[in-house]
């Protein structure tokens, strides 16, 4: 009972469809279903525009999607350069994936999969490995010169290399922790306020409930900003390994 009262208990997951594959627990739970619903909404929006036929004079929905794509395009072009359009699909999908996961979690009773550090960590590691692969395939052995900043005296190299390695490794960590922490904190605050509102007597209980609504609005902004920051930093990291200083 004490655990049920905890504002963190809604982060717990229970399998809905049990799937066990070779010792691995691949059960479908609430988080996965929420993620799928969010993705379906994103895909549905795009299909709605695509089915109606894109036109030169955009409707409301089309211009919204156009704006977001134009935004991502600008981001990709700015951080990676003109050859960055190769990664446009990846970056765009990443943005919409995180955005829909963040936003769908704001509906009471659903789940934010990005509040799981393992998920954000997986994506951060995928991006990190991707940047390494891009860098090595583009520059070959020369890529490792990224560990030695330009204009550093030779004596300093043994000191600079570990520092550069650490700052390289700090990127995926900070990337994943930032998204995870923002999502978790927001939802925890919401849960605490909601619990307060329910447990307090009626004459004062409306106050935390009202705050819940306000904070929910704030959370929408944070969801969008975090999705944006995650994609922006992905672009920055890809751009760094392409440009090499």
């Amino acid at each position: 009972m004490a655990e049920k009262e905890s504002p963190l208990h809604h982060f717990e997951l229970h399998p809905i469809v049990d799937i066990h594959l070779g010792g691995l627990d691949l059960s479908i739970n609430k988080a996965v279903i929420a993620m799928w619903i969010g993705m379906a909404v994103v895909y549905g929006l795009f299909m709605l525009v695509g089915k109606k036929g894109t036109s030169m004079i955009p409707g409301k929905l089309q211009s919204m999607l156009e704006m977001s794509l134009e935004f991502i395009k600008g981001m990709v072009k700015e951080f990676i350069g003109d050859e960055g359009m190769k990664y446009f699909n990846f970056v765009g999908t990443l943005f919409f994936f995180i955005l829909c996961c963040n936003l769908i979690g704001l509906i009471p009773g659903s789940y934010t999969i990005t509040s799981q550090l393992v998920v954000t960590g997986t994506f951060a590691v995928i991006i990190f490995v991707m940047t390494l692969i891009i860098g090595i395939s583009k520059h070959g052995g020369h890529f490792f010169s990224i560990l030695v900043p330009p204009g550093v005296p030779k004596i300093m190299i043994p000191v600079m290399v570990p520092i550069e390695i650490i700052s390289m490794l700090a990127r995926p960590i900070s990337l994943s922790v930032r998204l995870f922490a923002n999502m978790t904190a927001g939802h925890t605050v919401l849960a605490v306020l909601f619990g307060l509102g329910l447990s307090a007597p009626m004459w004062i209980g409306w106050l935390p409930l009202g705050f819940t609504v306000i904070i929910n609005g704030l959370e929408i902004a944070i969801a969008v900003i975090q999705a944006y920051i995650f994609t922006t930093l992905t672009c920055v990291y890809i751009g760094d390994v392409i440009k090499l200083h």
Partner: protein
Amino acid sequence: MPQFEQVSVFSSLIFWSVISFVALLFLLKKFAFPPILEILDAREKKIRDDIEGAEKINQDAEKLKADFDRQLKTAHEKANDIIQLAHDSSKKETEKSLQDTQGKVRQMIKEAEHEIQASRNKLLSEIRSYTAALTIASTERILKKAMDEKEQKRVVDETIEEVIQELEKRA
């Protein structure tokens, strides 16, 4: 925090999120992004084309206007030339006709003078010839009649009278 304690769900979360991400990547790349990117490009192209077209039309119009101005100017110049030419030629014509007339008049005066001279000469020569004839005739008569003074005198008078009459008739 359940996110760190509930280790059993990690595998399914990682598995499904990665699978879903790849599926979404595929779907968006295949069906969702291309039409919108196309329309963005198309619109960008159209705007650029339109602006370029407008600029071109503007340039054409300016060129046309310059052409027109130039033509107008040349036409003006030509007209001025023509007027000047007409003016000049008319002036020349007038001068020439004046000169011609003057020359003709002079010529006529000269001719008239000439004629007068000629007729006077002719008259004089006629007079001379008449006088000669008269003298001869009278002398003849005088010689024929030969004679008395009275007769002589009358014959001379008669002859003179005749000659004068004849002269007057002629005049």
